[in-house]
């Protein structure tokens, strides 16, 4: 409507009644002509005699040409007859051309004319009134999603760090790279792994796309968590208006985890297979586990172990169901931020006693063009960083083909689930319950109950995976849902704080809770790493440290997996021979890289021996020694590395053989 009105208004007085209405009515296609209010051009053309060919062509041109040309027709004859008419015709042509061009630009820019478009790009204030840039927000779909303006203080970088924007950016990055990867990926237990190898070794930019997808996924988890932390610290979650937005944000956090976790299985390597096996086993413990746990595990896996069915289910979740739900929730979440309550102001500004400061904080900044430019810049910088990181620093790991018959040592969940894995090791509650049990037994025995070794009272009622893997993590979610927005307020009132959003002034209780829960999360996160609580036999641990079964994934995001120093050193730098590690007990400055590794193994062996001397029967070994044997196994570049560790046999256990061999093959082309 606006467009049409403007066009009519701009029309000059001598432009006759209508720009498009001056064609010849007699021979025209009636249906293409708008009804004419006044037929003052009709007498210019004589239609009584049979038309000649040129007249017919002229008629055709007049009636079928675009209305802009038709509008010029009345001036054409004047132009033929007189020089003034010619000048008038040229003026008229310019005018019509301007209207055409301006309308085209208005249509494309969804509201801004040529002059305003240039003013927009030049950085000048808008020319027309009302502000045509606001009109863009009404007319254009993508612009209508954004608010027309923000309050100035809410756009401070140090207030939001653009984390919400970057979360959405990562979601888009994941969608785009994910669709590209789907081109070559087949969710089949026979093809999936081969397809990943193909993407990495036969498709140009294939590895980059996979790395971008991986980097984006890990950053997305990181940024969403940081975004949530920021909202918590600035008190931007407070009900009534923002409580529900926080709630949708919690659901989005869970969806981000679910998206990341469902994608974890798809490469179908050992890393993927066992991490997801552990993850789905947690579902097995959901009480009542005979019903809910049993069936939810079966439904997720599509069988009693993860197989073709499970892979397909995870794939469909990853590429279809979860992104669809996420998109809907992002829309709800964003709608509330953009339309219902806006980005919160910094609490200090909002609560400032000086009305001038409060007023300045609410000063408007138009989205177009200032904030739009800023967002484009953020997108450009993030893209650059992510591309550089994926291209030159980080490559997504791909380990051996999944083997349902063998669990690699020190299998871990992805880093963002390590806290659950730490809970599952149950370092606090189970020992406490055991101790309590011992105490109860002692008390019972005092009263003559005569409970012997192995008797239990309360331990059998404690189901560790159910509590630690499911119930406590699930309780954290309602805590996030309700606790943060609603209990927080009650809590602060209870301690007599004024209802305020300023962190250090009025929310001291919040600060204490935040610090405590962060420390708790870090502790259980550390417990989730293989450094805590998983002790394989000491000789195997030495083998794992220097020649791991599979690449060991560090417990932090965006660091590639590590295949141990010997593999990293590479085929070419491993001289054949049998090395008695005792010869390398005292490191020398002249050692080569290889010899330094030998010395490192020997140090570890000596340490184990000392631990045994100190009486540590779990980590120590009696009188250990080691040999490293490197043999050319096949003439075409295959070496065999044997790490042999021997110790006094029959001491640790009666049947102990006193020897452990870790064998690894290394091909000259394999790179780690």
């Amino acid at each position, binding site marked *: 409507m606006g467009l049409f009105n403007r066009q009519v208004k701009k029309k000059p007085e001598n432009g006759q009644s209508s720009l498009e209405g001056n064609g010849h009515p007699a021979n025209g296609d009636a249906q293409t002509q708008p009804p004419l209010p006044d037929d003052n051009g009709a007498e210019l053309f004589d239609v009584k005699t049979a038309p000649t060919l040129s007249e017919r062509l002229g008629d055709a041109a007049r009636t079928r040409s675009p209305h802009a040309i038709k509008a010029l027709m009345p001036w054409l004859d004047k132009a033929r007859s007189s020089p003034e008419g010619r000048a008038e015709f040229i003026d008229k042509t310019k005018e019509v051309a301007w209207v055409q061009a301006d309308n085209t630009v208005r249509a494309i820019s969804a509201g801004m004319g040529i002059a305003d478009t240039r003013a927009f790009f030049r*950085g000048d204030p808008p020319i027309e009134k009302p502000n045509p840039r606001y009109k863009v927000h009404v007319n254009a779909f993508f612009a209508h999603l954004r608010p027309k303006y923000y309050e100035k203080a809410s756009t401070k970088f140090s207030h939001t760090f653009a984390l919400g924007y970057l979360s959405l950016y990562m979601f888009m990055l994941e969608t785009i790279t994910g669709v590209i990867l789907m081109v070559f990926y087949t969710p089949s237990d*026979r*093809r999936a*792994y*081969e397809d990943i*190898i*193909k993407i*990495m*070794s*036969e*498709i*140009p*930019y294939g*590895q*980059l796309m996979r790395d971008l997808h991986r980097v984006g996924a890990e950053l997305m988890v990181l940024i969403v968590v940081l975004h949530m932390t920021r909202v918590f610290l600035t008190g931007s979650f407070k009900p009534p208006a923002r409580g529900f937005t926080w709630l949708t944000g919690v659901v989005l956090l869970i969806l981000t985890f679910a998206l990341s976790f469902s994608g974890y299985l798809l490469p179908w390597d050992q890393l993927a297979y066992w991490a997801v096996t552990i993850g789905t086993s947690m579902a097995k413990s959901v009480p009542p586990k005979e019903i809910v746990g049993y069936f939810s595990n079966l439904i997720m896996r599509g069988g009693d172990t993860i197989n073709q069915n499970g892979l397909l289910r995870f794939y469909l979740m990853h590429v279809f169901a979860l992104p669809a739900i996420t998109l809907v929730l992002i829309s709800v979440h964003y709608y509330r931020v953009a339309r219902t309550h806006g980005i919160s102001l910094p609490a200090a500004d909002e609560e400032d006693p000086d009305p001038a400061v409060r007023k300045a904080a609410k000063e408007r900044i138009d989205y177009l*063009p*200032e904030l739009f*430019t*800023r967002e*484009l*810049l953020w997108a*450009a*910088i993030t*893209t*650059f960083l992510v*591309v*550089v990181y994926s*291209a030159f620093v980080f490559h997504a790991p791909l380990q*051996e*083909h999944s083997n349902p018959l063998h669990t690699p040592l020190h299998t871990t969940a992805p880093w963002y689930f390590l806290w659950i894995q730490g809970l599952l090791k149950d370092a606090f509650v189970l020992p406490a319950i055991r101790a309590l049990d011992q105490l109860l037994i002692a008390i019972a025995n005092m009263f003559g109950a005569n409970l012997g070794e192995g008797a239990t009272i309360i331990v059998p009622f404690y189901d560790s995976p159910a509590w630690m893997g499911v119930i406590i993590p699930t309780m954290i979610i309602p805590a996030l849902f309700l606790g943060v927005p609603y209990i927080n307020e009650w809590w602060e009132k209870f301690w007599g704080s004024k209802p305020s959003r300023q962190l250090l002034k009025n929310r001291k209780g919040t600060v204490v809770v935040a610090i405590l829960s962060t420390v708790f999360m870090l502790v259980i996160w550390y417990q989730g790493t293989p450094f805590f609580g998983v002790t394989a036999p000491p000789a195997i641990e030495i083998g794992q440290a220097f020649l791991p079964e599979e690449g060991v994934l560090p417990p932090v995001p965006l660091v590639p997996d590590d295949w141990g120093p010997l593999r990293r050193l590479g085929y070419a730098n491993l001289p054949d021979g049998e090395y008695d590690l005792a010869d390398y007990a005292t490191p020398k400055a002249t050692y080569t890289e290889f010899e330094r590794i030998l010395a490192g193994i020997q140090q570890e062996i000596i340490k184990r021996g000392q631990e045994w001397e100190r009486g540590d029967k779990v980590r120590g070994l009696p009188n250990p020694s080691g040999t490293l044997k490197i043999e050319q*196994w*096949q*003439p*075409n*570049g*295959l070496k*065999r590395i044997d790490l042999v560790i021997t110790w006094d046999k029959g001491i640790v256990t009666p049947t102990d053989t006193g020897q452990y061999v870790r*064998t*690894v*093959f*290394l*091909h*000259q*082309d*394999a*790179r780690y």
Partner: protein
Amino acid sequence: MSVQFKILMGILVTAATVVVMLLYGINEDNRMNQYQKNFAGRSIQVGAEYYETYCMTCHGERGEGIAGKGPPLNRTDLLDLKGTPYLKAIGWGGTTADFLHNTIAAGRPQFSKFYEDESYQAHMPTWSEDFGGPLRPDQVVSLTNFILNWAPGEYEPVVAPVTPTPGPTATPIPPEEILKAIPFPMPPSDQTLASGKDVYTKYCQACHGENRDGKGPGAAGMAKPPRDFVDCAGMATLGFVTHHDAVANGIPANGMPAWGKKLSNEEIWQVIMYEREPCKLFTPQ
């Protein structure tokens, strides 16, 4: 930060991203080559581990073979990648890699005749789970790559598993099934031969000739002429298993198509009997 500065930054950063992408693209060929080798190498490493678990007890620690149990595998004459006399003798049309892969996957119903002076106590069992064995297809591929790594010179690693499509029309037909069908899945009766002739006329005659002499019109210009079924000296070396394999799975190198998907097993035996009729080679030698 002024708006102009932001715009300038945006331009520079975007241009830098484009440059990074282009630089990355320049090295892609090189990188992809390295990765192909990398994954081929890893496949060989994995194969070496499986070899220790499954193969070493019969074929020896380093593929040297164990007398009376399993033949050597590290022999260059077996692994000559251009095709070995042995593979030619048994009429194998595929590559050495295919032969190894199929032998590991589907086992071997006959004792190896590669080394005539040796005899072996055990059959090669089927290893792929496709044929009732314990190994997944990717493990068979890794084993194949490991064994091929004994070959002299450049080798072509088997990258993708040769996955047989499961289902009733699946080919290749595993040799133990062929063996099950021998001797005489089809007695060489008049009826068999008549049915065999029908099949022959429809599918084989164009190249192998109306007179079964290998001089059909379709044979013109072939580098290696089709099998002459009238040449009894030549036919005497053609065993039932090889004959069946040639019909069912074809000999790609010579241009013989695989008929296993088109013909039923019964029809294949009928046409084999018809083809063996001129020399009366109806009994397994």
